[in-house]
């Protein structure tokens, strides 16, 4: 299905919000793709990092907010360090998660973690996952 773009859609307030939370300008991106080639988990994503930025440029925010990508991102910062335009893509990912977490639930529900696992897991894993993935 074609993506219908309009002036209003491109100037979407959510894009502004994402830019505000992340402090990044998504229009800096010229789609070189190095964020995606360096990302350790691109293979598991439904949209690669460069596509995420591209969809934001097109104003197609909902599509990304519902994506798997933003939850699979492990905040390794590889994309941010390598982007030739200095876009901290990881911060954009964080902003997208944040928008979700502030409105709805995250992907991690504490009750889903098996109690046996819970015993083995180090605090560092639990705390970081809760901080990134729960609202």
């Amino acid at each position: 299905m074609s993506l219908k773009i309009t002036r209003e859609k491109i100037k979407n307030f959510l894009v502004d919000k994402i830019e505000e939370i992340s402090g990044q300008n998504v229009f800096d991106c010229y789609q070189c793709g190095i964020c995606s080639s360096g990302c350790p988990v691109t293979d598991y994503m439904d949209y690669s990092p460069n596509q995420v930025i591209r969809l934001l440029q097109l104003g197609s925010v909902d599509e990304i907010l519902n994506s798997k990508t933003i939850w699979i991102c492990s905040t390794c910062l590889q994309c941010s360090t390598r982007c030739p335009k200095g876009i901290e893509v990881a911060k954009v990912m964080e902003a997208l998660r944040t928008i979700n977490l502030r409105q709805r639930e995250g992907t991690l529900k504490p009750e889903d973690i098996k109690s046996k696992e819970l015993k083995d897991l180090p605090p560092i894993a639990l705390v970081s996952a809760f901080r990134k993935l729960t609202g």
Partner: protein
Amino acid sequence: MKSGYFPGCTLKTNAKHFEDSAMQVMEVLGHPLEEMENWICCGTVFSMTTDDLMLQLASIRNLLRAENQGYDELITLCSMCYNTLKRAKEFILNDEENLRKVNDFMYKEDSKFKGTTDVVHLLSILKDRITFEEIKNKVTKPLTDLKIGAYYGCLLVRPKELAIDDFEDPTIMEELVDTLGGEGVVFPYRLECCGAYQTIIEKDVTVKRTYEIINSARNAGCEALITSCPLCAFNLDQRQKETSEEFLEFSTMPVFYFTELMAIALGLKWNKDWKKLHYIDPVPLLKEKGLI
């Protein structure tokens, strides 16, 4: 210069051997670690949102307490603590308005946060303060013939502004291994993320990462890995269980905290309790090399 030591939660539990070995090593090197009082969990991960200061509070509260306890610097062993504390500090100090708000939140503390305490990783102390030369002089049991891959992961080298070494081509840990008489082996995946907290909801991803990272190390000739992050250690060591189940040809590899190997090289006794905290038993390798 008064240095404090910030342990963080995991060093008191699953990574007790990291703390123990570091404490002993620093004692031998004449720079004993002094634990700061009243610390709380740093939050483990730095929040990258510009508009939610609450998420920075845990880190800042620790730094404020360290300030009040008169520490000029706070040494961390855990890469994540280092990263989170340091970034939170830079983020808050960079903006007067943020600084003011954070101080408002923490009105119950004894004083206002000024940001005078530096955050340093133990590796930097070893290299810049104590120097590898000095360490080399104290090595009594060199790690001869031991080929070690240094796994940096993400947080020692990213973001690049606070990388403890060149963010694309660090050498500090390999140099340390060489200092200890072993052979530091550069392997391709040493800066690649292990999957971090995905270990909880996307276990498969971390298992696959572990598989790739350990294989990359093995192909480069490593016999063991060292790390400085308990989350990396968990993924790379404990997850070898699932990795072995999923990939039948996979062969395991011991994963150490770098301070464990330092302890051995400096002639300290290998502590049996440490073994229990390893999933892949490192003892056979250490025995084979005549190190214990």
